């Protein structure tokens, strides 16, 4: 398959794995955070951890928009969808996320709410056009990757004078989250977790470019390699990070040159800026309130802003206190360190944000890698015996 198989070449992967083994200094350890859930998924699905030496470890970051959406906003969306005049359109992977009462959009749909799973913002627009008697609300979430399509939907709705279309905006921005992790006491002061470098997001960077990461690389002296979502992309990014660290460099490098430039998609950025502005603060599930980390519609588009149009109320809702998602999202703990993991918290019964989406660190570990925990326990048992 053109443009896919080339990046899944087993022989090349093994060549790079051998270079990683010879590049990694046995006298030191390396910890790299992949920010993006897409990378977490690929690492788990293809078993890439098995190809890395023991002193090169991956730390799973917070980059899954479904995971970091606070449950208060899920609750608000469910309350809105239960109103008889509303048709709520949403991406599929939001359907199972539960609010503080254990309700999900899936449950609300079964209870009679008009909730429709869509594959693009344009599907939601089509519904609004076809059913003018309904109030169609698009439940918009995602990082910089999915914000331009939402802007396009808004632009189209305005052009077509669609009076029954609005957006419940939950878009968030990547740099704020990276900043939060690097500024967290665990990383800066306590030294609980070591992050030596970042694998930067793929699709997000196609929109924002590599320039926004230059500040972090310089200020925190951490190398960043923006990488694609194929297994070869990820493993090559690990090699590039290793080389930077061994050389004492800390710059932004671009592995994903087939899609990402330094300045990104300037046209998409302009469209987003036309319609959205930063919120003072936005809650991230597991990370708390992060300054300038979320977007809302500009005031002149209030008629298309579901929060204003329907006077939506969002509550701050706390996660289960035993849930370790906050620590896992900052890379302080691993999924299996959480007492809830695999006991009461599984992909079928997710308690915390990291188990909610298939791209969450806990869901990826449970779905693809939990045999490793068992193998490590067996090894430890044999060592004790």
């Amino acid at each position, binding site marked *: *398959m053109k443009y*896919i198989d080339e990046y*899944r070449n*087993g022989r090349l*992967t*093994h060549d790079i794995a051998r270079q990683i083994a010879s590049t990694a200094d046995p006298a030191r350890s390396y910890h790299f955070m992949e920010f993006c859930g*897409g990378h977490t998924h690929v690492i*788990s*699905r*293809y*078993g*890439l*951890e*098995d*190809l890395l030496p023991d002193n090169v470890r991956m730390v799973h970051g917070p980059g899954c*928009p*479904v995971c970091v959406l606070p449950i208060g906003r899920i609750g608000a969306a469910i309350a809105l969808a239960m109103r008889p005049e509303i048709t709520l359109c949403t*991406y*599929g*992977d939001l*359907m*199972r996320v539960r609010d503080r009462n254990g309700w999900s959009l*899936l449950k609300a749909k079964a209870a009679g709410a008009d909730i429709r*799973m*869509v*594959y693009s913002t344009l*599907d939601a627009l089509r519904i609004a056009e076809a059913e003018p008697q309904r109030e169609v609300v698009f439940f918009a*979430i*995602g*990082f910089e*990757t*999915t914000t331009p399509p939402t802007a396009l939907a808004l632009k189209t709705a305005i052009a077509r004078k669609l009076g029954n279309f609005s957006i419940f905006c939950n878009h968030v921005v990547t740099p704020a989250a990276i900043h939060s992790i690097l500024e967290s006491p665990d990383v800066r002061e306590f030294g609980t977790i070591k992050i030596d470098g970042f694998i930067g997001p793929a*699709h997000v960077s196609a929109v924002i470019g590599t320039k926004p990461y230059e500040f972090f690389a310089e200020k925190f002296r951490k190398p960043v390699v923006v990488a694609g979502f194929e*297994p070869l992309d990820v493993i090559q990014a690990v090699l590039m990070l290793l080389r930077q660290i061994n050389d004492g460099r800390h710059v932004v490098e671009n592995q994903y040159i087939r899609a990402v430039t330094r300045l990104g998609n300037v046209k998409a950025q302009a469209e987003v800026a036309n319609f959205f502005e930063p919120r003072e603060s936005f809650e991230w599930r597991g990370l708390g309130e992060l300054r300038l980390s979320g977007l809302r519609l500009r005031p002149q588009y209030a008629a298309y802003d579901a929060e204003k149009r329907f006077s939506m109320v969002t509550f701050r809702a706390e996660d289960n206190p035993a849930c370790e998602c906050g620590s896992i999202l900052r890379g302080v703990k691993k999924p299996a360190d959480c007492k809830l993991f695999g006991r009461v918290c*599984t*992909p*079928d019964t997710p308690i915390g944000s990291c188990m909610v*989406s*298939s*791209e969450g660190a806990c869901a990826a570990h*449970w*779905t*693809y*890698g*939990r*045999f*490793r925990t*068992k193998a490590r326990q067996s090894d430890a048992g044999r060592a004790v015996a």
Partner: protein
Amino acid sequence: MNMMMEAHSRNLDVANGRVDLSHGAGGRAMGELIEGIFHKAFDNIWLRAGNDQSAFTVPGGRMVMSTDGYVVSPLFFPGGNIGSLAVHGTINDIAMAAARPLYLSASFIIEEGFPLADLERIAESMGSASRGAGVPIITGDTKVVERGKADGVFISTSGVGVVPDGLDLRADAARPGDAVILSGSIGDHGIAVMSKRENLEFDAAVVSDSAALNGLVAAMVEAGGRQIRLMRDPTRGGIAATLNEIASQSKVGFHIDEEAIPVKPEVTAACELLGLDPLNVANEGKLVAVAAPEGAKAILAAMRAHPLGREAAVVGHVVADDDCFVQMSTSFGGGRIVDWLSGEQLPRIC
């Protein structure tokens, strides 16, 4: 032909007509519908007898019986429709016991307003599928419900079959060391259906693999029946669900090899587009067999000699594992679990 049926006036306008509530009310219109569409399509001596049931000959041996409901959307997809699927599905459920399927029943719940021409297409494909597999549909039922209370047409099929003497396939029979044999490429049916689903239509050169597997199973039984521990057709949930189900029922684990599992490039491409794993995607004409290691070679050879098993391959083996994990060696030399799907398979957003 049933005398009572012949007495009905023949005014069924199949080309332009639609199912209405009278077609399910038990009167003349219902008789016309059954005779004009179902009896015509399924024609056989049992239906011609015109009874509410059919008496049939039972050969010696252990009987198996299976039933299944079909609610597929869309009703028509590349490579088949709900009718052929309903016939193949029940035949395959019976065949997975290494049984010879003998007879089928078919029950229809039809939504008011459903075009008669579509119903005829569905019935004709059922008749063709049952004749092709040598398993007649010998009894049935028809109900019509008001518009909005069904999605076009729902079909339930049941079937009976007989297991050859000396064979007793059981879900808990897999043993460490056994070979896992897959009959062909995976994911074709699920992707063919999704490619025609509303809001998701895309061009894919994939047709459903929907097929009756009783002929393939008969060849396998002849080649090494007693060496077959168990068989499953990996329908909804794909081979991931099937292997996990067998693992938990037999209290064993599996080690499978990603590179040995055939997947068509078009299926891989569609799965990439939708963020799906082919291992979770449905099949309707494939089987997974667990066989004693000493019989695997002969069974595999018999499968490859059959048109529906040309791509058959040993894709892994059974291992002892208290956790019942299905583990897979990836094409990169790494390892991963192949897990059950959580809930419905939903495309990712990015």
